[in-house]
């Protein structure tokens, strides 16, 4: 039993991966992406029909929450996992992305593809505005400031004129077609593939960052901030970067989300969502991209799958969190053992 508990799938997987040559890796990645891309058709094929969600529309569940949670968890993982900063208000960036889509499309008539860079930029700017004062603080003080920021964004959305107050903004247009791919009300498959494409892009970006200077700087900051500073790492600058890049991913997710659901309201961006995304990161394995993806998919999918339990489903969800964290405190796919010893000290 204890051997099973200590079995580290991530290390085993990394070992196999290291043994492959380049063509094998390419084939594997392509095959994997195609397999995930086929997920929308799972319910109509016998052996995978158990995946179908009984009450919610399966294909919509794949876009939100599953796809969006994976995207946001990857973004939050840059902040929490890579550089070890506890952010409890990540939903704010998601909300900023969603509200830029809603306001710019309904007021100025811009389309989603024009808004996407603007939404990302706005999320990044707000990341700087929040990060500059907050990142000078450490640990749990940072946590409470980010929590407050998340609440402030929601309260602003409720109270300032022009955001529709508690009722939100209806009538957000879907994105226009690109290369003949339509993104209408009935084209949830295309939305799923769009989100999948964004996820792949983000994974690629994170992997690039990890092996370059920012990744090394984040790693140093996570392990020991004082030592990193003494070694000449500009800690504030790199912490700010990780914050801003995380914000950008959240903002992008928000823009696409708003154009998918067509109506947004402040209720969608509550503190609970920040916590849920953080739970995805920790549940899957802090700092490990594949763990985070797996954790987010599971935690987003389970509540929809057990929707037939109605009232009790959140209760079951809470129990799953407790039991899983007790069985595997480092998450489903923990990061490398070498890094884990250090992680205990900082996070």
């Amino acid at each position: 039993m204890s051997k099973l508990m200590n079995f580290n799938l991530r290390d085993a997987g990394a070992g196999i991966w290291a043994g492959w040559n380049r063509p094998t890796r390419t084939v594997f990645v392509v095959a994997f992406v195609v397999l995930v891309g086929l997920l929308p058709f799972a319910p109509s094929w016998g052996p995978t029909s158990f995946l179908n969600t009984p009450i919610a529309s399966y294909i919509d569940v794949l876009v939100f929450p599953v796809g969006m949670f994976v995207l946001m968890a990857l973004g939050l993982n840059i902040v929490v996992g890579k550089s070890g900063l506890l952010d409890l208000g990540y939903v704010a960036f998601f909300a900023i992305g969603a509200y830029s889509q809603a306001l710019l499309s309904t007021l100025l008539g811009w389309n989603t593809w024009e808004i996407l860079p603007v939404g990302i930029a706005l999320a990044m700017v707000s990341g700087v505005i929040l990060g500059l004062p907050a990142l000078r603080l450490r640990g749990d003080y940072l946590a409470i400031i980010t929590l407050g920021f998340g609440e402030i964004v929601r309260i602003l959305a409720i109270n300032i004129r022009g955001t529709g107050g508690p009722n939100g903004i209806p009538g957000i247009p879907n994105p226009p077609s690109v290369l003949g791919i339509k993104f209408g009300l009935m084209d949830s498959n295309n939305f799923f593939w769009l989100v999948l494409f964004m996820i792949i892009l983000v994974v690629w970006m994170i992997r690039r960052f990890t092996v370059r200077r920012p990744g090394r700087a984040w790693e140093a900051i996570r392990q020991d901030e004082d030592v990193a500073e003494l070694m000449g790492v500009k800690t504030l600058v790199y912490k700010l970067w990780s914050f801003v890049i995380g914000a950008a991913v959240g903002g992008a997710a928000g823009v696409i989300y708003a154009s998918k659901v067509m109506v947004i309201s402040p209720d969608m961006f509550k503190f609970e969502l920040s916590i849920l995304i953080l739970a995805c990161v920790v549940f899957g394995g802090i700092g490990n991209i594949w763990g985070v993806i797996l954790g987010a998919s599971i935690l987003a999918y389970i509540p929809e799958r057990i929707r037939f339990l109605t009232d009790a489903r959140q209760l079951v969800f809470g129990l799953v969190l407790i039991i899983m964290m007790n069985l595997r405190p480092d998450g489903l796919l923990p990061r490398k053992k070498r890094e884990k010893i250090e992680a205990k000290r900082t996070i």
Partner: protein
Amino acid sequence: MNFSVIQSQFPSLLLQGLALGLIYALVSLGYTMVYGVLRLINFANSEVFMIGTFATLYLQTNIMGYTNMSQPIHGAKLWFTMIASLLASMIVAAIIAVLVEVVAYRRLRAKGANRLASLISAIGVSIVLLEGMSIITGAQPRSAPRLLEKWSFGEIAGANFRIDTMMAIVIPIIIFVFLNRFVTKTRLGKSIRAVSMSEENSKLMGININRVITYTFLIGGLTTGAAAFLFMTVYENTVFFIGFNMGIAAFTAAVLGGIGNLRGAFYGGIALGLMEQFASAVIGSAWKAVTVFVVLVVVLLFKPNGLFGEAVQQTRT
């Protein structure tokens, strides 16, 4: 913006703010004491508060048989009901707090898991308590019977010294005085402080860490339960998600005062209560949370350890 309110209602706002702030201070003890020994945010404390309010309610309605139609009671019967409700709320909250420690923290601590893992399991416990109570109460808000007639001691410059307001001021102060003596004078109190200074060293001095941690949760639960009783006496209603706002406010208060010590919780709670009252009077209650957080950011920028925090406040190894 309506600054004239401050002039016209100053004494009244001061009194209300003080009462609210001291309730916050009691709840924030549940965060600050646990943070002191574990360096962890006790996320489930908001649900401990919520269950405390329901303990008061159920004792008065289901066990003692009062209804919302009941007339206020007097004399010995009133004393008995109030003290019984206070004790029930404190004891139930303390039991839940200790359960939280056992379920969410103990195993993970034994395994030497990272801090975020405990945070998530505490959030899991919090969800279970929240949703469990939502099912039990049918997600309906409940109002408590008004057993205490709300007579006033008198009025000074518009400030109404009502009995429930006074209770919400006097009882927390008594608890704080008592608790302060407890942590400075008794053996257990001293060991709690020792663990919060250095876990390793207290272990070497022969302190049973697990026992100290359990007692810390117990004390945090007791004070949170007392706060829940006072809340029910003053505001007279509860709902299953009531802990959320209270939890955020109390945690903010703890950080504002300097998390990890008693004085911080006390003054942080009062500061937050006053700020909320004055902010809602001047710029409207919709903006009170924004004001609170802006003030919090400014305070932390100039005093990164809170108003009364220790000088050395690093994430411990």
